[in-house]
C-alpha cells in the first residue's frame, strides 16, 4: 500500500480570471514537477495539486489546430464573430472548446506514476469524478465513445482535454455549471456536429438553486466538491479509504 498522497486544492481567486493567468499558474506547477524529475536531489517532491478556477470568456483550441490551415481560418472566423471572447491555442488534446463565467475548470497537476495510473485510467478517473459530482444534483451523466461527460447522447455537460509531459498531467475538465450556452453555438464542440452543450442550471434548475442559495461563489463550491471526490478516488486507487 503506497503512502497516501493528499491532494492540495487551490482555487484561484474568488472571481473570474483571464485564461493566461490560469495557464501560467498551471505551467509553474508543472515545471516544478518536471524539475523535480530532472534533478530530484535539488528540487523537493511537489504535492499533487488540483487547480480550480473560472475564466473570462475564452475559446481554446487543442494542439492539433495550431498547424492546420483550416483550423487557423476557423479561429480567425471565431474571433470576428465573437469579439468579446479571447482565443488561445493550448498544448492539450482535443479540439475547440469554450470557457467562461459559470463554468468550473479543474486542472489536476499530478504525477501519474505516483498513483500508478495509465493515461486512459486517469481520464476515466476524471470522468468518474465529474459523474459523481453531477449525481449530487440528481443528474445521471454518462460516458460515451466521444470524449467528455454527457447527459444524453447529444448533450454534453463537461469536456475533457489533458496534456501529459513525462507523466505529469496538466489541463483537465471543464464542467458547465451556469455557463452562458449561447457561446457554444458558434463552435462545433470537440468536432461533433450533432452535439450541443448543456449545463447543470439548464438540466436541473431547482436543484442548483436549492443547493447554491446561500453560496457566495457557486463555482468555488463546485470546486470544493470536485476536490473531495477526486481525493477519494485517488485514495481508492492507492488502496486507502473505503474499498
Amino acid at each position: 500500500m503506497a503512502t497516501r498522497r493528499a491532494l492540495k486544492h487551490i482555487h484561484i481567486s474568488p472571481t473570474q480570471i483571464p485564461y493566461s493567468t490560469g495557464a501560467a499558474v498551471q505551467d509553474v506547477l508543472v515545471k516544478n514537477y518536471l524539475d523535480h524529475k530532472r534533478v530530484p536531489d535539488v528540487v523537493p517532491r511537489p504535492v499533487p495539486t488540483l487547480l480550480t478556477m473560472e475564466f473570462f470568456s475564452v475559446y481554446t483550441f487543442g494542439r492539433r489546430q495550431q498547424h492546420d490551415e483550416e483550423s487557423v481560418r476557423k479561429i480567425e472566423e471565431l474571433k470576428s464573430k465573437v469579439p468579446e471572447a479571447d482565443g488561445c491555442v493550448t498544448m492539450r488534446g482535443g479540439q475547440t472548446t469554450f470557457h467562461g463565467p459559470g463554468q468550473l475548470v479543474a486542472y489536476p497537476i499530478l504525477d501519474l506514476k505516483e498513483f500508478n495510473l495509465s493515461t486512459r485510467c486517469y481520464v476515466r478517473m476524471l470522468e468518474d469524478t465529474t459523474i459523481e459530482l453531477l449525481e449530487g444534483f440528481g443528474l445521471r451523466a454518462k460516458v460515451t465513445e466521444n470524449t467528455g461527460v454527457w447527459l444524453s447522447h447529444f448533450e454534453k455537460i463537461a469536456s475533457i482535454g489533458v496534456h501529459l509531459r513525462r507523466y505529469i498531467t496538466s489541463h483537465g475538465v471543464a464542467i458547465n455549471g451556469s455557463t452562458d450556452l449561447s457561446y457554444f453555438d458558434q463552435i462545433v464542440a470537440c468536432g461533433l456536429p450533432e452535439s450541443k452543450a448543456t449545463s447543470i442550471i439548464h438540466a436541473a434548475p431547482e436543484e442548483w438553486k436549492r443547493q447554491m442559495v446561500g453560496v457566495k461563489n457557486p463555482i468555488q463550491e463546485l470546486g470544493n466538491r470536485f476536490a473531495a471526490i477526486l481525493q477519494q478516488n485517488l485514495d481508492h486507487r492507492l488502496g486507502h479509504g473505503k474499498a
Partner: protein
Amino acid sequence: MLITRNSAKDSRLARIQNRPRIIFAPLPHFEDQLHLISLQSLPRMSSHKNILTATTRLAAVRSRSSAATRSAACVPLLHSRLYSKTTPKTVLSQRSTVRQTAQSPSLLSVNVISRRNYVSSKDEETPEGLRYTEEHEWLALEDGNLAVIGITAYASKALGDVVYVELPAVGTSVVAGEPIGAVESVKSASDIYSPVSGEIIEVNEQLDKKPGLVNAEPYRRGWICKILIKDTTELESMMDNNGYETFIASS
C-alpha cells in the same frame, strides 16, 4: 533462398569483403516479395559467383513481382540516405539460416541492430535488438548513425487510439531528453522525448493521414522520426528489450 555459403578463397574474399554486401531474399508475403537486408547483420559474404547468382535471381523475381514492389528498392541500396518511403520492409525469411557474425568495432559494438532484422510477421511486444527508454520510446539504428524512433506497443496501448501525431520539423537539432513532438489520443496529448542528441533528418509523413499506424505497427510503419546521432555513447545507457520488459513489469 538466402545465400550463406562461404566458399571463396582468401584473396577473393578479401576483395569481396571490402565491397558492400547485399542479399535479396524473396518472401512469401505479397507485399514483401523483395527484401533488402542491411549489411551489418550479414554473414561474411559468399563468393563472387553467388553475388551474380543473387543478381540473376533478383532479375527473375523482379519480373514476377507486382508493380507495387517493383517501385520499391530493387536496386541495391547501400546507404540508408537513399531509402525512401517505399523501402520495403526487411524481415528475415523463416527459412533462412543466417549465421551471426563477429561484429565489427563500430556502432555494432553497442549491439543495436536495425529493426528490420527481427523474425516475425507481427509486431512483437518488445522486439529484440532495439533500445528503449523509460519514456517508452524505442530506437533502432539504420545504417551508420541514423536512429529511427517511435513509441513502444506498451505506450500506444496505454494511450488508446492515436488520433494525431505532432511531428517535429525536419532539420531541427535536438538534445537528448528534449520534447520533439506529441502523440494525441482521443482524450489526451502526451509529449515524445528524444532519446538521443542529433539532427532530425526525416519524419514519418504517413502519420499525418494515418495516425493509427502508431497503434497498429508501432515498430514498423508507425515510426515517428529519424535522427542523425552525434554521440553514439548515449545509446549505451538505454535499456535493451529485457531491461525494458522488466521495467514495464515493475511499474
